[in-house]
């Protein structure tokens, strides 16, 4: 301790052993105490605990600290919290820095305790040196715009929108397909209760559709997003339906439409039924679709593709609801928060050619089987083969794409239970023999193990093994005309050939393709391709972008139970954020020293955010603090050092570098 002008306190956390088992915290404490301008150095079992923070606050008050270094876990965990505590104790929060001695020392170098301790000392010294050069910053706030956008109207988005609407927020629910409901609306029954999916979903769809606080945009996609403090401006493209809201839902247009008819050269498959049935150019995806407003698919319509030669739908429409002149429309939606609920799509099973998807007619993926079992599906709920006859035997292959290093390394979490559900429903409806080919049975939810036991008692066959292939090449009379599943039964240690009439592939969940959306919202993806949450354990519904939340399968594969729970949590987080009314503006942005500025405009040339401009009269650069993101590109191109980013000035960073350096010299 020597006589400087600052009074800095250093607090070293044990993290209950996570740090102190590796790093010699006593040595670090003593080292810190020797640093210039350090007037207090202490260690504590858990700095993040109430007692830890109380000690921080007491010391700030007692010693009149104007600088703090907490040596603990990554600043991504508790920097905000410690700064809040410091502020409460009367210190400017931006005079507090974290030395990351857990992730960067105790964890990374746990087999080299001496080196970890030396490095911890260096990290503390670097942050003390930085704090010595910090100055207090004022915090400004910006009001948070009213309203929230929920992107995706599957069960996650619907549930979140309902809760947010009920809490009094103005909600814009944006869905890219013509109807709300998402994948859940395609299901017949849901595990483990075997509730009718639509019986549970339909009331929610109606509630959200009629909710006075929910503005629903279907057949609409977010094209771009611009972020300003407290506000997101979404550019939403409303695709043309060519059917106005005068539509009374009589279905005459669909009946009259020639597309996909027996003699029609234009044919199109129903997306809703995943290619299992044809559809007309003008259609309603399924009978309970909401809104009950028909949609015309111009890419497969004679009117648009054959020089306006058709138009029969307009002729038969009793409500005059067909409007061929519609064009895509861009709508600006201004909100304060966004919930991303963009859901999943099934893994493309044709990527695994040995299972014969797309090659053999009676190999289906799980979502197709949902449609075959659904009363609104292409077979009105009868499980039939392509030739129209019911199968005598069905093989269900688990983990298709999932838990496979070649395709998706993650477990998709729902396929075991969905497969058991298919087994149950197929036995119940057709009496067919059913075989499950599984790697491990994962039945880890409320009522799931019980459901597994129930299905296991229903004369369903279980073979533990991952099939190597599905083939139509018969090697025995009982395989003639069948699809034979070749598999090693790993419990019995024998290779089996199991002939069946129908194969169901329980495919992995892939995230919906929303790369463009994520890029415009500046959201990261995890390595698995799903939206990266703020923190997997303690903050799974927030994202790194303040005001953007994530719900449902957009974040990771999950079942409906978990999706509802997470959507509720996301809605609560968004509601709290909106309800706070204002948000703190980041003070760590650029500022200009007018004495040094030569008005050369290089700063404004490299700025991506139009946050800095040169005033032509004063001949000085001016920063718009609400637009500046604090990236610091300008600071590198400035020839005079006039523009700096607060708390990242060259003096401050160089002080850290010097303290970390092998040739550390006394400042």
């Amino acid at each position, binding site marked *: 301790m020597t006589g400087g002008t600052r009074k800095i306190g250093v607090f070293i956390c044990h993290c209950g052993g996570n740090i102190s088992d590796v790093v010699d915290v006593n040595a670090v404490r003593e080292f810190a105490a020797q640093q210039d301008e350090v007037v207090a150095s202490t260690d504590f079992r858990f700095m993040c605990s109430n007692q830890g923070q109380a000690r921080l606050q007491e010391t700030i008050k007692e010693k009149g600290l104007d600088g703090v270094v907490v040596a603990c876990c*990554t*600043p*991504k965990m508790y920097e905000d919290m410690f700064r809040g505590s410091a502020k409460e104790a009367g210190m400017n929060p931006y005079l507090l820095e974290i030395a*990351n001695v*857990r*992730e*960067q*020392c105790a*964890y*990374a*170098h*746990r*087999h*080299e305790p001496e*080196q*970890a301790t*030396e*490095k911890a000392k*260096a*990290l503390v010294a*670097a942050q003390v040196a930085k704090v010595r050069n910090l100055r207090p910053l004022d915090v400004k706030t910006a009001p948070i715009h009213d309203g929230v956008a929920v992107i995706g109207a599957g069960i996650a988005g619907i549930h979140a929108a309902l809760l947010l609407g009920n809490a009094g927020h103005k909600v814009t629910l944006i869905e890219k397909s013509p109807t709300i409901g998402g994948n859940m609306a395609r299901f017949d029954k849901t595990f483990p209760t075997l509730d009718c999916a639509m019986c549970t979903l339909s009331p929610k769809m109606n509630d959200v559709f009629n909710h006075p606080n929910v503005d629903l945009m279907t057949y609409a996609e977010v094209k771009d997003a611009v972020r300003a403090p407290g506000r997101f401006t979404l550019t939403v493209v409303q695709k043309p339906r060519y059917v106005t809201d005068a539509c009374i839902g009589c279905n005459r247009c669909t009946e009259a439409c020639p597309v996909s008819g027996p003699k029609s050269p234009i044919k199109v498959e129903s997306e809703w039924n995943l290619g299992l049935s044809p559809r007309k150019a003008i259609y309603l995806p399924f009978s309970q679709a909401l809104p009950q407003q028909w949609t015309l698919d111009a890419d497969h319509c004679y009117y648009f593709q054959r020089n306006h030669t058709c138009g029969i739908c307009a002729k038969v429409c009793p409500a005059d609801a067909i409007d061929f002149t519609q064009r895509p429309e861009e709508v600006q939606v201004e909100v304060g928060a966004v919930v991303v609920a963009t859901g999943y799509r099934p893994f493309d099973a044709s990527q695994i050619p040995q299972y014969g998807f797309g090659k053999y007619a009676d190999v289906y993926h799980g979502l197709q089987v949902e449609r075959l079992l659904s009363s609104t599906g292409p077979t009105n709920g009868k499980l039939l083969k392509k030739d129209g006859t019911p199968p005598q035997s069905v093989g269900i292959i688990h983990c298709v794409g999932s838990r496979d290093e070649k395709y998706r390394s993650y477990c998709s979490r729902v396929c075991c239970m969905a497969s058991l559900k298919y087994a149950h429903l197929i036995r119940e409806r057709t009496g067919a023999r059913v075989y499950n080919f599984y790697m491990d049975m994962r039945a880890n939810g409320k009522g799931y193990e019980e459901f597994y036991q129930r299905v296991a008692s229903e004369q369903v066959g279980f073979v533990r093994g991952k099939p190597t292939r599905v083939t139509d090449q018969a090697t025995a009379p009982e395989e003639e005309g069948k699809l034979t599943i070749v598999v090693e039964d790993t419990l019995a240690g024998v290779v089996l050939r199991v002939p069946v009439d129908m194969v169901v592939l329980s495919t992995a969940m892939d995230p919906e393709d929303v790369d463009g959306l994520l890029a415009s919202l*500046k959201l*990261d993806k*995890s*390595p698995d391709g799903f939206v*990266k949450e703020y923190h997997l354990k303690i903050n799974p519904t927030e994202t*790194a972008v303040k005001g953007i939340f994530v719900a449902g399968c957009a974040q990771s594969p999950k079942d409906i139970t978990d999706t509802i729970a997470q959507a509720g949590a996301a809605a609560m987080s968004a509601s709290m954020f909106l309800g706070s009314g204002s948000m703190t503006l980041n003070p*760590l942005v650029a500022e200009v020293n007018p004495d040094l500025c030569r008005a050369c405009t290089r700063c404004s040339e*490299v700025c*991506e*955010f139009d946050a800095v401009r040169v005033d032509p009269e004063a001949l000085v650069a001016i920063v718009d603090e609400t637009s500046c*993101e*604090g*990236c*610091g*590109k300008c*600071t*590198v*191109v400035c020839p005079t050092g006039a523009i700096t*980013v607060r708390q*990242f000035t*060259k003096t401050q*960073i*160089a002080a*850290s*570098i*010097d303290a*970390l*350096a*092998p*040739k*550390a*010299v006394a400042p």
Partner: protein
Amino acid sequence: MTEEPQVLTLCCNWCGYNAADQAGAAKIPYSPGVRIVRLMCTGMADPYYVLRAFERGFDGVLVIGCHPGQCHYKSGNLQAREQTDRLLGVVQALGIGAERLRMDAASSSEGPRFAEIVNEFTETLRKLGPSPLKEVA
């Protein structure tokens, strides 16, 4: 005193720094000679920091940002790439050796990638031996 090459690692707040956290949390070992300074973006990695680090005895300098196209600020990492590339010639001309300066990318979830980058760089530096500037008073 340690024999490990001393590496100043300038990490951006959004990718490089988080990747280092992930590497730590996953207990993937890397050399304790790796010292990280957190910047908001590699776009603010001034050549001054690199030269100062060598002058202060670091054996190598690593700049780790987001992958191209993934920058939290759109193009900070691209500017950093330009600056680093330009600096390579300077570092070479000064006799420090261009191999001692490197820029790479690791996304926020790529802990193993972070460890791979720093381990590979440390190995290169180990083969090169101490920085020639280390001995200059």
